[in-house]
């Protein structure tokens, strides 16, 4: 591909009215279940979200001892927001809390994909490709689902079949594939991710004194971001960028003849060190994007389901740098007017040493594929056969989760 400069026009896209877009060529999404005109929005959190911090099981007797300095509590200056008698919500998520109270948001805890190793790339492959093993990177489950859904409005036969929207500089794998999708990226420049400098520093420290020296100089003089502070500068790895992506996607999805599903990916969730500060900021971005979707989707919000998922969880215990390493089970978020919310869905495995997977991770008791399948069947009218055969190959034994859609 070519690297193109963004024009001022593209920068203006978000500020412009919907009339700028000629959506007439895109058909209505027909045959939705229950007479809805549904919207489905998977959001991938790249880097592996710590579900035990995002949705802390404050009622679990072993939680405090396990998490020690980074344990959340429901009292004190940064009190977590109680969801029920057992789970609480990170205080950076007031919008999600509001939706939860309104019955439009839910958490699926102790969930995971079938992947059980600890590589981000492979974990993301499994999460997004829909296959049980990594390495199948040609297409994603959302794209294959689009291909298999009932065809467009019979009133306009032969019209374009574009129903998907890919948001961001790189199309997330989940929406890549044969079914045509629309690409859109906010005009924000693509900054170097905040945790790149610390990662390079770690590498240079071990391998190259000259580069270590100049990187240190760059950081100490402010030419290179230290990486400890998430700054508002746009892109999928900072709060402002997340909200922008959500708002732009929502405006396109809100169009009568616009796409009906959109895939987004937010970055920066790999919290090996200084987890509290990073998540305090990143979760604000995620939370604001829920509000942006609700606001911009307008009447379509009632038929919308957002699914926020990440490639795997993090270790139950805190590591030596006030962070957590790669683990297994984690939390997924559901939000939208179509969600039967106000609850945390979990078959809680417990946090005692013997209950942890490999003695270190929150054990996964819910298969994320069941969640996706449940939404696909009840909101989009997808057939379980299609889901087991094409969307999540080899998943016959994973039944669609019932009752997720209101």
């Amino acid at each position, binding site marked *: 591909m070519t690297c193109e400069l963004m024009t001022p*026009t593209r920068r203006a896209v978000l500020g412009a009215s919907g009339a700028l877009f000629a959506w007439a060529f895109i058909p209505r999404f027909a045959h939705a279940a229950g007479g809805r005109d549904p919207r489905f929005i998977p959001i991938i959190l790249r880097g592996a979200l710590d579900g035990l911090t995002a949705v802390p099981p404050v009622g679990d007797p072993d939680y405090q001892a396990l998490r020690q300095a980074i344990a959340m509590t429901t009292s004190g200056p940064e009190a977590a927001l109680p969801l029920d008698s057992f789970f609480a919500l990170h205080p950076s998520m007031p919008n999600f809390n509001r939706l939860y109270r309104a019955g439009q948001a839910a958490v699926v805890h102790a969930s995971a994909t079938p992947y059980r190793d600890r590589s981000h790339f492979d974990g993301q492959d499994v999460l997004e490709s829909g296959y049980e093993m990594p390495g199948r990177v040609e297409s994603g489950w959302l794209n294959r689902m689009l291909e298999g859904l009932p065809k467009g409005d019979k009133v306009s036969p032969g019209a374009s079949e574009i129903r998907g929207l890919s948001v961001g500089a790189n199309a997330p794998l989940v929406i890549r594939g044969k079914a045509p999708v629309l690409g859109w990226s906010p005009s924000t*420049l693509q900054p170097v991710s905040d945790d790149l400098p610390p990662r390079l520093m770690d590498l240079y420290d071990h391998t190259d004194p000259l580069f270590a020296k100049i990187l240190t100089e760059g950081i100490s003089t402010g030419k290179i971001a230290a990486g400890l502070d998430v700054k508002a500068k746009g892109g999928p790895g900072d709060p402002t960028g997340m909200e922008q992506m959500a708002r732009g996607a929502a405006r396109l999805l809100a169009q009568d003849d616009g796409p009906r599903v959109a895939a987004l990916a937010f970055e920066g969730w790999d919290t090996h060190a200084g987890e509290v500060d990073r998540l305090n900021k990143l979760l604000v971005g995620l939370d604001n994007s829920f509000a942006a979707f609700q606001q911009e989707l307008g009447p379509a919000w009632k038929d919308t389901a957002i699914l926020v998922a990440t490639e795997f969880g993090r270790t139950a215990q805190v590591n030596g740098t006030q962070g957590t390493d790669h683990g297994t089970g984690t939390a997924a978020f559901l939000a939208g007017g179509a969600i039967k919310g106000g609850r945390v869905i979990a078959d809680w495995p417990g946090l005692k040493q013997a209950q942890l997977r490999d003695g270190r991770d929150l054990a996964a008791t819910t298969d994320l594929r069941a969640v996706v399948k449940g939404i696909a069947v009840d909101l989009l009218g997808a057939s379980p056969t299609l889901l087991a055969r094409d969307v999540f190959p080899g998943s016959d034994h994973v039944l669609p989760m019932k009752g997720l859609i209101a």
Partner: protein
Amino acid sequence: MAQQSNDVYAALALSRFGLGADHNGTASIAFDPRGALLEEITERYVPVPVGPQLQSTADLLVSLYAFQEERKQARQQAAVAVAAAPQDKQMQGPPPQKPTVQPSGATSPSSQAMAAQPNNQAMAAAIGKAVEKLEKPAMPYLPQQILLAEVDARFNGTIRQPLIGFGERLAMFWANHFAVAVSKSEEVHIVAGAFEREAIRPHVFGRFADMLFAVETHPAMLAYLDNQQSIGPNSKANANKKRGLNENLARETLELHTLGVNGGYTQTDVTTLARIITGWTVARNEGKLGTPGTFVFNAGAHEPGDQTLLGLTYADNGVGQGREALRDLARHPATAQHIATKLVRHFVADTPPPGLVQTVAATFSKTDGDLSAVYRALVGSEDAWNPTLSKVRSPLEFMTALLRASGETPKPNVILGALTAMGQPFWAPAGPNGFADTADVWASSEGLSMRMDVANMIANAVPPQIDPRSFVSDSLGPLLSNETLQAVSRAETRKQGLTIAYLSPEFQRR
């Protein structure tokens, strides 16, 4: 030094003597890496930049003269029009842009064209400046159009071939040794590429004396170092005794191009050489001296009489006087030493191993500057294959290696912007000594900051399914350290993994 395995030789051949591995990785030459390198020398493989706008210097200069005339008339007409009836400036915005539709699915490379963006403010500013420069004039600025075409032909063409790319690296080396700067004048701006195509590339594997003569008589060099105005004080053209010598080209020929700054010449030698090459100029549009835009010897401006340079006397036989002087400078022992030192510094180490310099210099002298023989002496020495990567890639080399490895073909203005941002504006060194060739110049925190942005830009642009783990092991081969593999493997995203791979010490060094 112990013999390396073929895998190590393959990786070194690509990074140290070539342009970096392409998508085939180091495996492409692993069978016989040193043989493959020698073959590129034997085949005298210098790729030729091609493109419809890549014309001869003469044609380009004639176009420039026409462009300058047209612009002059346009300005005059505009001045007349403004004086007659001042008008409101018309506001005209760019056409509105729609989101891109990806009919063949999101994996197609073109589908992401809309998404690739320069990636931070500084980068954007540098690139923006380049673009602004392009967009400012009402009519396309011809010298910059040509420069962009030349850049396109190289970064999207010649740097991709052949497997190792030793010839292209040498073309870069010699173009920097005989540096011209496009910022000097419109003439240099428009023919800098033609200069490299005409005076450098044909001689990269030939004789140094031939390259030297081609360079010093090329309109680009004559314009860049002011020789086209130099007039013999006692020449016919100076009958009114008002004009005279310009020593610039003569000085740099001695100091930079041949003997070196400590090469044993004096100020008298500089002045003498300046006299010898008076009359070496470029035919202008009127064609009185010859075909417009070509090198001509203007006998009327030539200083008459015999000249003694470095103890040798040259009879005044017109252009032959200078040709003979350059021939002797080319075979001077100081020149052999100077060129050998620069070559070894460029390819092997910032502090060139003296033994290797002597070997290379001796070959230069023995073969009367047969450059192919000189390179064979260089790459035939075990000293040149030390697996420790001590050189830091210059921004130009870094950019080249990035584009080869990623397969990306950014637009030329993006490449120019990136090179400028990283501190090595293309064909635009601050002085005739070209860009420096040592790590202390390129390994700076500003430079690293910009490299991070450029690496991130390319990582954003490549097809998202590329696995950074296989990328590093394929492209770095045995040079890949465990630490780098680990850092790449642990990256949060494929994109970040690639960015780390591009910024790894093994990729930034050679």
